[in-house]
């Protein structure tokens, strides 16, 4: 009995360790996720596809997390510029381009199966229960990010500010509904 009670946790630990290293491997190659996924599935016979699938989704989840964090950081940097009184347009332009770029990538960030059932995430299951509404909100975000980035090409601070406010509205619209409170 005693032996069994020791082996079970030991097994769990080794499983966790496996999952962990798998995930971090995936993270390392996150810059090229779709390629990795393609070669991964092509190289493996169909029978192990299930085993490789969770690792792939985890990588997407990780990319999503990192991407959202970068968007958040860029947003904060822009807000600080505006609130400071003498905004540095070059900084704003760079951050705006980053957000616009990531917003396009975000289309690939929410495949089915990357909700809380897979791991720690702020993505609510509601996303996959209301795919049309979610897609519409994501689209609004992408349009607003593009418009904001385009506005930073000019020198009209008020116009840029107004597009920035629009962009913030699209973040909030989606987060209020589809993001749970996640602590990290």
């Amino acid at each position, binding site marked *: 009995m005693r032996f069994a009670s020791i082996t079970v946790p030991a097994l769990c630990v080794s499983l966790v360790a496996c999952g962990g290293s798998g995930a971090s491997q995936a993270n390392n190659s996150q810059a090229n996720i779709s390629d990795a996924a393609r070669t991964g599935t092509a190289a493996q016979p169909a029978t192990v596809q299930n085993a490789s699938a969770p690792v792939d989704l985890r990588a997407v989840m990780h990319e999503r997390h990192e991407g959202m964090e970068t968007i958040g950081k860029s947003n904060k940097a822009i807000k*600080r510029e505006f609130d400071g009184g003498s905004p540095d347009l070059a900084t704003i332009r760079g951050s705006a381009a980053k957000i616009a770029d990531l917003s396009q990538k975000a289309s690939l960030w929410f495949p089915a199966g990357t909700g809380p059932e897979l791991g720690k995430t702020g993505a609510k299951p509601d996303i996959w229960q209301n795919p049309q509404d979610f897609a519409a909100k994501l689209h609004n975000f992408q349009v607003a990010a593009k418009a904001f980035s385009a506005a930073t090409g000019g020198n009209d601070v008020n116009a840029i500010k107004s597009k920035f406010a629009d962009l913030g509205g699209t973040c909030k619209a989606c987060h209020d509904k589809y993001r749970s409170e996640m602590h990290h």
Partner: protein
Amino acid sequence: MRLVHWLLAILIGFSWWSVRNHHTDWHIWSGCAILTLLVFRLLWGLVGSSTARFSNFVRGPRAIGDYFRGRWSGAGHNPLGAMSVVAILAALAVQVGLGLISQDEDGLYAGPLYRLVGTDASDSARDIHELWFNAILGLIALHVAAILFYRIRGRHLTKPMVTGRAVLDPGTQPMRRGKWWVALICLAVSIGITRWIIAGAPPF
């Protein structure tokens, strides 16, 4: 004073509700209102009514010992309750201070003084602000528990806090009321300080 107390209770509840329901802008305003009340309470604790003055009710451990041995009588906070008042006011001051320099996760909202610190500090402040609320909840729980404890022992503490009238032990000095115009000045000063902070505390 009673108004300040009940406004604080309402605003703490409202702050919690608003931030839970994605009304971060209301949450920030509520925090600023709490700031005004805290500054007012601090000033009133210096120049207000006799029972509100810190110098009259905040006492050392000896007085608390005396209180436990039944050798204390007076109007207002007893020496032990004084500790609770100070702890709650201090905890709220910390909470407001953290909120002032916080920014939200998405870069949409921020406390009025967030630019005084860096972006990482603002993020950390928000995390601590969230955790610190538990300390406030704990103090409120203790506060309510103490009131229930006194009630079981036959003392109604809520009634005087609503009506402003309490039955005192014979021979006890009653409360000396504060002057209305002093209260008005305290209020004006606390609103002024709050507005200055909302403006980003120029020239810093």
